[in-house]
């Protein structure tokens, strides 16, 4: 669990520490990871049914996803780790 002051005053803007910008990862490496995050995680506030990926056959969804092989994912991850 994280520690820190409670956000008791809703009108106070939260100061942020500096850090590197959030660049997008290589497309083919990240697509499957992106799909699982964008469709299955994040805050839900809408009352409408939200499509998730858990237990759903992506082929039947008609999504044209290119899932890279594990070996390719590894190679790209190694390249990315060196940057």
């Amino acid at each position: 669990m994280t520690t820190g002051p409670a956000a008791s005053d809703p009108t106070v803007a939260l100061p942020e520490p500096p850090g590197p910008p959030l660049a997008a990862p290589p497309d083919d490496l990240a697509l499957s990871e992106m799909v699982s995050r964008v469709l299955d995680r994040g805050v839900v506030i809408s009352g409408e049914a939200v499509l998730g990926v858990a237990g759903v056959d992506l082929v039947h969804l008609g999504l044209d996803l290119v899932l890279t092989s594990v070996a390719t994912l590894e190679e790209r991850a190694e390249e990315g780790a060196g940057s």
Partner: protein
Amino acid sequence: MGLYLYCIGPEGHRPGAGLRGLEEEPVHPLEAGGLTVWASSLEAPPSPSPGRIRRHDRVIRTATAGAVTPLPLRFGQWFATRREAVESVDKRKSDHLRALEDVRGSVEFGVRILGPGRATGEAPSGRETTDDPEAAGAGAGRAYLEALARRQADEEKRRERGRALARELGERLVPPVRRQRPEAGSGDVLAAVSQLVARTDVPRYRGGMRAHRKSRPELRFVVSGPWPPYSFVT
């Protein structure tokens, strides 16, 4: 015209001019109970497609590019009217403020842990083709049940191994990992975790991951990120 929402941030956190969201609609700020939501007009709830998924993520990354860490919304948060959108956000304002504090200044990394690579023609890990319960035949009842029990035991061993590997990874990388969310592995993936890291600790995290990889040469680690903190906002 309805409203499609991307992320929730503190009051005053506004998109820059020219940012486009789904269907190339301009992204604009929506003030809701002391929070600012990034939104764009959309006639109807969108169906997921690779292009829309990428665009949704791109808007959130743009929102996270500055000094603020907003809460990513899941794909598909659409409202028929502005009023409904504002009411829905305001209804859980205290939860959103708490979540904003939890992920402040942080990003997410995804890690998949895999076992050694397979030789060509070798069966997928966790499934022995000579011990397939379905191959035992309908008449070989006892053999079938024994094969099923062995397969289930093997699966449980894999799952336990995956849990142990995830625990070890989390322990080795704390700090800089602030929180970790494990997931069940499947297929060749023994374990998968999402890890929350302060942005200022990203170089330290990468160094720690490289060191952990070297200490575990029999395993393969596939790391993706940094991501907006999708896995840590609910």
